[in-house]
Structures are given as C-alpha cells and as structure tokens.
C-alpha cells in the first residue's frame, strides 16, 4: 500500500495495517520535521509532488520490496502541503517473518523513496524566506548538510 496525502499521517493505523500472524517482526519508520537543518532554523516546510510519477515510483518500490524480502505487508505514506515542526512527513511500515528482513526492507524503502520519488520540500525560515531543497546527489547532500531525517 502507498499513498500521497495532504492530511496528517495516521501512523498508528499504518502500523496496525501491516501486522500479520505469519510475521514475527514489524518495523516502522517515521520521518518528522526537525526544528533545525544544519544551522538553519526551520519554522515550516512545504512539500509538493509530481503526483502521477510519484505514485508510479512508489508502486515500483513496493514491488521491489516484495520481490526482495518475504514481506507480509508493506505500507508507505508521504504527506504533501504545509508541515510544521514535529509533523510526520513520511511513514514506512513493513512486516516480515524475521526481524533482520523487516529492518532491511524498511531501510531500503525509505532510502529509495528519498532517491527516486519526485517530491520536493521548501524550507521556510523565521525571516520569511523559503528555499527549495535541490541538492544534486545523495552523497553530496549528506556531506553538505544533514537531511531532515
């Protein structure tokens, strides 16, 4: 299951939705809006997506996860629009028979989502300025300044 939404993410329901009697492990990842990105104070973020392409890429990631791990259920939700500090921007939950698989599958899903899904965030500072985040590669992004999650 995957979804783009402008509403708050119900990550409790998401966690429940992946539970499965054949699966001994559930892993949930939440990305939340931090008050600081590097030195920059963030007051709120705007997220926008290229919707049809984002949904296609999320479907591909879900299929990839199911191909690579013996997943019971996998669920990914990304929020769009204005988010305040503390809000959940993305949630990924997976159930698998054993715990190693669940950690690997969720890590793969969130890493791939951040790399491939056409979603962009604008960081809005206290002085009223806003800046789209467009680092050119994950590696240089990590070096230049920390991500929000």
């Amino acid at each position, binding site marked *: 299951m995957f979804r783009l939404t402008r509403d708050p993410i119900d990550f409790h329901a998401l966690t429940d939705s992946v539970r499965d009697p054949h699966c001994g492990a559930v892993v949930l990842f939440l990305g939340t809006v931090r008050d600081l990105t590097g030195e920059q104070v963030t007051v709120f973020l705007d997220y926008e997506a290229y919707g049809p392409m984002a949904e296609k890429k999320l479907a591909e990631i879900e299929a990839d996860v199911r191909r690579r791990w013996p997943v019971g259920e996998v669920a990914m939700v990304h929020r769009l629009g204005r988010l305040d500090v503390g809000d959940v*921007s993305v949630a990924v939950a997976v159930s698998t028979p054993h715990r190693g698989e669940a950690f690997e599958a969720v890590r793969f899903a969130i890493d791939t989502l951040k790399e491939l899904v056409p979603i962009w965030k604008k960081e809005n500072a206290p002085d009223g300025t806003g800046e789209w985040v467009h680092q050119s590669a994950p590696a240089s992004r990590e070096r230049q300044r920390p991500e929000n999650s």
Partner: protein
Amino acid sequence: MTIRVKLFAAMRDLTGDEVVEVEVPDGATVGELRRALGAQIPLARSLLVRSGVAVNHDLVENDHALSAGDEVAVIPPVSGG
C-alpha cells in the same frame, strides 16, 4: 511539434509557470528539448543541468526521442522524505 513541459519546485518558481510550451522538430530528442528549454528560459539553465527529464512518468536519457502527446516533466533533484 509543441511539447508541454511540466515544471516543479524551484524550476516552476523560476519561470512562474507550471507548464511551458516548447517548440521542437518532430521526433526531437530529450537533449534537443533541453537546449530549446534553456534558450527559452535562460534563468533555468543551471538548475536544468542538474535536473532529470521524465517522459510518461519515467526518467529518460538525452537520446530518448519524443512524440507529440508525451507527458514531459523536468525533475529537479528530489528532496522528499
């Protein structure tokens, strides 16, 4: 042919438009589209170099040939998550 190109995030803010129409020869490649777009919107050139181009919701290389009716979008480096 006329290609309607969708723009997002800083690319859209630079141009002020969610869609720009770009005139290219029939059967033009994505590389030719990039050059036409850069000529039409000089301010967008430096971000365009760092951006991908998606045709029908998949990123494609510069040698990809375009057809009238393709859904085309410029994809600046993404920052979801």
